[in-house]
């Protein structure tokens, strides 16, 4: 310790706990005090060593508004790397090739590269007009929708395994991976939950009742590394079904009436806009 700066203040600077004014004051002192700089560098190096030792992502200089959120910091680091110009070997190779002098060579008359691209684009446009535009929006897996419909048909009318009156007990029984806060839709009353087989893993089947005491099911299946996809509606054996994905989970809502499914989809925020927003935020 140098005696020139309060150790508490130095630690607060290293741990990013100073308010902006105190931080700028400290940085002004840091510029003129090499001993203080050395001390700060030592603590920062120690922080990096601890985070690396326990597998935590390194902290980024970018502030995304929530310094406590490690994943946001990690995403910020990735964004900074892509913005900051990461290595692009293929782009470099192309630019180097372009910089060299063209070799004059007599060749038989052929279409140039630009002409080939133009012809290709015209052919692609003609094909798209003829066949129709492909669906470019992400779609939930078909197996997820089928599994959700099967689970709802087989299990929705059975007694629930876990009652909804005690969400803490519900979470304790199901475990942190399966227990989510279920969406509360207007007109639907949460009755409880059951475990259900799904497309890839065990899922939670949340069961609701509408005003006619008819059951409405929402299956939530944890899926690793799946992209967000907006709700896709369908009908399976007389059941109205909607499936969507997001936040590492697959969701299937199933009910006899379309309105109940739509209410669940809206309550879960799985309409096209919100999913697109979440997806863009993740990128």
């Amino acid at each position, binding site marked *: 310790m140098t005696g020139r700066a309060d*150790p*508490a203040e130095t*630690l*607060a600077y290293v*741990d*990013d*706990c100073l308010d902006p004014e105190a931080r700028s004051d400290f940085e002004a002192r840091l510029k003129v005090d090499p001993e203080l700089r050395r001390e700060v560098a*030592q*603590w920062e190096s*120690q*922080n990096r*060593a*601890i*985070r*690396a*030792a*326990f*597998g*935590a992502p390194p*902290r980024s200089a970018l502030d995304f508004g929530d*310094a*406590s*959120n*490690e*994943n*946001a*910091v990690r995403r910020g680091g990735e964004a900074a790397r892509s913005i900051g110009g990461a290595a692009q070997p293929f782009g470099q190779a192309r630019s180097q090739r372009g910089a060299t002098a063209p070799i004059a060579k007599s060749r038989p008359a052929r279409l140039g590269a630009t002409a080939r691209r133009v012809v290709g684009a015209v052919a692609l446009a003609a094909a798209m007009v003829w066949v129709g535009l492909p669906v470019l929006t992400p779609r939930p897996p078909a197996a997820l929708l089928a599994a959700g419909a099967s689970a709802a048909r087989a299990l929705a009318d059975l007694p629930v395994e876990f009652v909804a009156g005690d*969400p*803490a007990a519900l*979470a*304790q029984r199901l*475990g*942190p991976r399966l*227990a*989510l*806060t279920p969406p*509360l839709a207007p007109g639907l009353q949460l009755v409880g939950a059951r475990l259900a087989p799904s497309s890839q893993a065990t899922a939670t089947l949340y069961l609701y009742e509408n005003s006619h005491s008819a059951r409405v099911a929402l299956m939530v299946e944890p899926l690793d590394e799946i992209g967000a996809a907006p709700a896709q509606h369908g009908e399976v054996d007389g059941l109205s079904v909607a499936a969507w994905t*997001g*936040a*590492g*989970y697959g969701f299937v809502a199933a009910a006899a009436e379309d309105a109940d499914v739509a209410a669940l989809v809206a309550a*879960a*925020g*799985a309409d096209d806009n*919100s999913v697109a927003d*979440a997806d863009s935020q993740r990128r």
Partner: protein
Amino acid sequence: MSSVREWSDDAGALRRFGLALVRDDRFVFDDVAACALIDKLFRQASLTLVDCPGGDRRAARVRAFAQFVRLYRRHARRLAVDEDGGWIETPPSSCGSAAVGVRGLPLELREALLLVVLAGFTHREAAEALDLPLAVVIDRLVRARTRLAVHMAASRDAAAAWPQSAHLRIVK
């Protein structure tokens, strides 16, 4: 569904913090034992994360970590009493790495340091989670970092001097 994502972020941070906290090379020596203990404590502590629909996320996060620390303190105190009737500081290890140095710290210093450095809490949030005054938390942070710096410097020196000082022990 952004709340689901935030909840899983917090759960991941809590699990990472827990794994670092419970490996003390005294009662919990390996990752398998640490994971078993974490699963037990994590399930109880994560209830405070799950059971907060529409609540303040930051407060829920602090509550969950505080609950985890309380559960682990109780667990460690029970083990210490079962063993020798008192709280004993872990002897420092001679192996040189930041992880070993952190494991060699007493629990009171380790939990404060890991909350701030690993879980990304501010000093004030750490004080709230540990149910301690802010000054005490800062004092513990200073002590933890100083001890860890001494440990890491000593292990660096030992590694540098190793070729000269190392020798085989003669066993008859």
